[in-house]
C-alpha cells in the first residue's frame, strides 16, 4: 500500500464491511483466544497442582522419576507445539485470507 502508484486512499469502511475481512478478524481472534486459553490451562493447571495437590505430582511415574518431572517438561513442550499450531494455521489459512482482502483493496483503488 505504500506503492506511490496507489495514491488513492483506501476506503476503510468498505474493507471493514467486507465479509472476507470480517471472517479474517473473527477467525484470528478466535484462534488467538483458544490457543491462549489452552496455554494458560496447561500452565496454571500445573501450577495449581503444585500449589494444592503436590501429592499427585509426587506419585512415581517410572523408577524414581515422579509425575512432576514429565508433567513440567510436558508443559514446556505443549507450549511450543501450540505456537507451532498457530504458525501452521497462520501460514496456510490466515495469510491466504489477508492476500484475498488485499487483492480486493487493490482492485477497488
Amino acid at each position, binding site marked *: *500500500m*505504500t506503492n506511490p502508484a496507489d495514491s488513492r486512499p*483506501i476506503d*476503510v*469502511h468498505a*474493507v*471493514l464491511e467486507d465479509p472476507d*475481512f470480517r471472517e*479474517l*478478524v473473527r477467525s*484470528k*481472534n478466535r*484462534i*488467538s483466544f483458544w*490457543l*491462549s486459553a489452552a*496455554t*494458560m490451562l*496447561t*500452565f*496454571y493447571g*500445573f*501450577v*495449581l497442582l*503444585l*500449589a*494444592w495437590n*503436590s501429592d499427585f*505430582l*509426587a506419585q512415581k511415574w*517410572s*523408577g*524414581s*522419576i*515422579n*509425575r*512432576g*518431572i514429565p508433567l*513440567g*517438561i510436558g*508443559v*514446556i*513442550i505443549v*507450549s*511450543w507445539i*501450540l*505456537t*507451532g499450531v*498457530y*504458525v501452521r494455521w*497462520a*501460514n496456510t489459512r490466515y*495469510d491466504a485470507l*489477508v492476500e484475498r*482482502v*488485499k487483492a480486493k*483493496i487493490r482492485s477497488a483503488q
Partner: protein
Amino acid sequence: MNTASTIIGQRNNLAIAFFFIFVFVTLCITYWAAKKTKTSSEFYAADRSISGFQNGLALAGDFMSAASFLGIAGYVATGGYDGLIYSVGYLVGWPIVMFLIAEPLRNLGKYTFADVVAYRLHVRPIRTAAAVSSIVTVLLYLIAQMVGAGGLIKLMFGLSYASALFIVGALMILYVLFGGMLATTWVQIIKAVLLLGGATLLVVLILSRFHWNYGELFDAASARYGEAFTRPTVSAKVATSPLDLLSLAIGLMFGTAGLPHILMRFYTVPDAKQARKSVFVATGFIGYFYILTFTIGFGAAVLVGKELISSVGKGGNMAAMLLAERLGGGPLLGFLAAVAFATILAVVAGLTLAGASAISHDLYAGVIKRGQTNEADEVRVAKTATVVLGVLAILLGLLFEKQNVAFLVGLAFAVAASANFPALVLSVFWRKLSTAGAVASIVTGLVVAVVLILLSPTVWRDIFGQQDAIFPWLNPTLISMPCAFAAGIIVSTLKPDAEAEAKFESQKLRTYLGVGAE
C-alpha cells in the same frame, strides 16, 4: 566421586583466551555493522533486515540470561524440584507473545512498544508514561544483570568487581553505540549458539555418566539426598503460599510479554509473517534450554554435591560451572565461563538499546519534539542515551554491589506484566481505550507493583530489617496486573475519547492486514 575442591576463583587462562576470541569476533561484527548503522531505522531496527529464524535465535539470546542459566541450575542443585517452576514459567510467556502480541506489534509499531499504545491516542501523555515504565523495567533488569555479572566475573576470571563492571559496560556501549541493533542482534545470535551448545555439551556429558538413561540420574539423586529432594514442592524462598505461587506464575508469563527489549526485537524483521516465525523458533530454543538447565541442576547435585556447590557461590550460582569442571576439567570450565561472560554482555547490550530507544524515540522525538525531528538528531540522542545508560549501569552496579539483587529480576517481570502488558493488550483489542485510561493503566501497574514489592518480605523484612512484612507475598502480579486492567477500563469509561474510538477502525486494518506497516 566427591572431591571438595575447585579451581573456580583462580585465574583461568583458557577462559580469558575464549573470552578474547569472543570479544574480537563481536567487535569485528560491530565494525561491519557500524557502516550500515546511520539512519534511525538502522539504529533501532537493523533496517528490518533480520530473517525470522535469525530473530528467533536473537530473541532466545536476549531472553536466556546468565542469571537464569546459573540461577535455575543452582536452585535445582541445592533445592531440588523447586527450580522447575522457573524453567516452565520463563517459557510459557512465549505462546502468549505469539497469540496476542507479536503480529499486532509488528504491524502497528515502528521501534518501541509505546508506538503501538500511542497509535490512536494522544501521543505525549502515552509516550511519557510508556517510556517511564520501559526505562524502569530496563533499569531494574540492568542492575540485576550488572551486579550478577560483577560477582560472577570476579569469581571466574579473578578480576576485581569494579574492573569487571567496567569491561562489561565499555563493551556493551561499543556494541550499541557503533553497531546499533544490527551488531546487538549478531551478538545475541552468537551468544545463543554458544550457550545452547555449552548447555547441550554439559547434558550429554551428564547422561554419559548414567548410561544415557535419564531415569538413572534421578535414581542417583534420590539415593543420595532422599525422596524429598526430587519431590515436587515449593519452598518459602519461591513463594509463601499457593496464591503467592500463582502470582509468581502470572508474573513470569505476562512479564515476558511486556519486556521492552524483547518487544523491540519484533521490529527487526520485515513483516508479521517473519515475526511469527521468530517466536516459534525462539520458543523452541528457549524451551529446550530450560529443560537442559533443569537437568544440569540435578546433574550438579549428584556429580558435584550440594555441599561444595553451597560453599562456592551464593544461592548455588556456581553449580553449572562446578559441574563443567567436574566433567571436562579446566578447559570446559574455561569455555563455559567465557560463555557466561558473553551471555551477560549480550543481555545488557539488548537492555541498553531498549532503554536508549525509550529515551530517544519516545521521550525526545515523541514528547519533547512532538514528532518534529530529523533522523540525524534522533540517532544522535539515541547514541548519547546509550552512553549515559551504560555509565549509569556501571555506577548502579557499584552502588548495589553488597545488596542481594535477585529480587530485581522478579520485580522487572512484575512491572512488565503490570505496567506494559495491560496497556498493550487493551490498545490492540479494546476499542474504548482512551488516552486517560491507558495512562491510568500504566501508572497503576507500575506503582502497585513497586509498592507491593517494597512492602513484601523480600524488601521490607530482608532489606529494611523490619519484623513482619506488610504485604505477605513475594510476588505482586496477581494484585498489580488486575489493578492495571481495572484502572484502564474504569478510567476509559469515565473519560472516553471519541477520536481514539473512531481511529480503532483504521487501526484494525493495519493490525490484521499489515496495511501501511513500516
